[in-house]
């Protein structure tokens, strides 16, 4: 067992999101890609993932998810944009988004429920709406207590883009900007959603 592969990451992630990791890799990297990932997992501290029946509503170690992302980036030579894209795409497929849809009768309502949606996915971290100025085309979210891994910062950018489109509609030149990062020593993560 290679101790270097073990990540020391707290927290849990809902099975619904975690399940999408393998589906995404199979879709984009093919069965061969999935096999490579499985092989990598086999020789890692996280081989038990392969023997675990992932259930939608169950909680699983967040590090499992982070490890798969890091390994995928490594195996498939993903760029940062590829990781953002991963976050963008998997968000759309989760059942929690479908459950979260009940808030989508108005953008303001949906934005106000962001933390509730977050709590359905992650067992740690809090989301706060810093600003929601639809007229000036800017929404700012703050995430605290979520100092995990840089890779998740990229994934979250993808999440926000996806949810942003779902709430606000397709906007011209929608930009997700990470203004602050806890891993950079900032007190929190801060993301802006801006559009033209």
């Amino acid at each position: 067992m290679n101790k270097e592969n073990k990540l020391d990451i707290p927290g849990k992630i809902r099975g619904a999101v975690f399940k999408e990791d393998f589906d995404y890799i199979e879709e984009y990297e093919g069965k061969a890609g999935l096999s490579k990932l499985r092989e990598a997992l086999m020789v890692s501290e996280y081989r038990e993932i392969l023997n675990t029946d992932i259930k939608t509503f169950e909680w699983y170690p967040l590090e499992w998810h982070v490890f798969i992302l890091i390994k995928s980036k490594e195996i498939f030579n993903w760029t940062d944009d590829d990781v953002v894209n991963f976050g963008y795409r998997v968000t759309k497929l989760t059942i929690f988004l479908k459950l979260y849809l009940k808030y989508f009768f108005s953008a303001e309502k949906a934005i106000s429920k962001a933390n509730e949606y977050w709590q359905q996915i992650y067992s740690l971290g809090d989301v706060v709406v810093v600003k929601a100025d639809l007229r000036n085309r800017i929404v700012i979210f703050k995430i605290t207590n979520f100092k995990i891994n840089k890779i998740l910062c990229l994934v979250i950018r993808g999440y926000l883009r996806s949810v942003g489109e779902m709430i606000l509609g397709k906007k011209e030149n929608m930009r997700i900007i990470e203004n602050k990062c806890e891993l950079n020593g900032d007190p929190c993560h801060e993301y802006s959603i801006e559009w033209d």
Partner: protein
Amino acid sequence: MATPATNTVLSGINYYYMSKDQEYLAESLQDDLENLERYIQEYSLFLPLAIYSINPVGIIVDVNHAGKELAEFEEIEMIGKEIDVLFKEGKKIGSYLEEIFKNGSVKNQELTLITKKKKEIPIRISASIRKDREDNIIGCFIAVHDITEIKKFQDKLELKVKQRTNELEKAKNKLFETLKETETAKARVEDEKDKTFAIISNFIDPILIIDNKEKLSIFNPKAKDILGFSDKLIGQKIDSANNYSITNFTKYTNKKFNILKTNFEFNDSVEEEMEVEYKGETITYKIITTKIIGNKKEFLGLMKIFNDLSREKKINSLKSEFVSIAAHQLRTPLSAIKWAIRMVLDGDAGAINDEQKDLLTKGFISNERMIRLVNDLLNVSRIEEGRYGFNFEELTMSQICDPLVEGMEDLFKKNEIIIDYIKANEDYKVYVDRERIRIVLQNLLENAVKYTQRNGRIVLTVKKVADKIKVSVKDNGVGIPKKDQEKLFTKFFRAQNVVRIQTDGTGLGLFIAKNIIDKHNGEIGYVSEEGKGSEFYFTIPIKK
């Protein structure tokens, strides 16, 4: 103390302690949710109807398997897309969405779906809004029916209908043309029919038409009037006996027909003669029955045309009367002239010289000729008026022929004609008018002498043929031209070749002879060839 739960937590970052019951409940709930999720997934996979779930701003938030298949997009490609990009109608979808969110639903709206591969699919949408517990609209489900096959069928049907309509239109036009032509032809036929009917109706004498089914099809007003036919007779089947003789019509009228003459031989026509009373007068008709043949040589029926002979008869009667009167009036002075000249020639008025004698002789001969003509005219007149009386008696042929031949010997000698008289084996008796038969035989012998050259031969033969006596006079004279033969027994007729030879002759002899033989129930006939001679004969029944 409750066991800290490490794997099953419902919310938040803080672990909290759950009792075993709570743990069990939490696990149960999770199982139920898993089962529900599986159920929804299976249902979504199975459902053949494409369903798109959109949020209030028209973003696709979910799509089922059928929806992905129809649009040819992956789920991940569709979620987050605005619904209007799926439709050809584009931004117009907004108005449908407004209607959906306003009215709660929209049913059966026809649109066009654009797939990922840019294929256009005709579809029909139904939509129904979704609300939360507080009655806020949180989106809607849009069901999409692929109506390609229906459209194809509709288009096919429309095409078929169009084609059929065109065919029907063409057929209709053709029918109208045909109808028009038929109408025109019918009008023409009616016109012709009217004209024909007008001609028949206005014909001065009766006309009857029998169709090819032996039914009386038309008769004109004159027929109705004269013959007493009623309109009910139209369509009546007519007895075909004796070529549809007028006698077959007598049962259809209360008029009395007197049939005078019939000829049932059908060459081109059949002739009959009849009399009928009309307005106190007797009308004599000659009825000619002739075939009606169509343009295509088809037999169409028979036409009976009535020719009023009354006028002709009256005219003939008047002519005859005139001739009779004239002849009578002429006979007396002619007789006086004859005797006067005779007396002078006989010297009763004194001597006359040769020149005077010659002139008077010529005058006498001419006068004799006139007297003969007047006598013949009188005889003809009597025959035509039915006043030519007969006095029949029983005689033998010798009693008739012998005195006549003896009496004509001078004539034979004068013309240097040899006469052979061949008698029958037996001297048969006949029932005749002596004088009239003598006239016939004398006429035949005189004609033979007139039209035979000097040194010619005449053979008079009397023989029995069946139950008749046949008397024939055969000569080797000039003969009769073929074109003149059929008119031999008509009044005043003389063949051209004999007129040149013999200017004498009234042309009445054979007419009178035929009448006499007819009255004796005999027949008169001839065989002749121009340049070779003629044989005239008559037959009389032997007296039993």
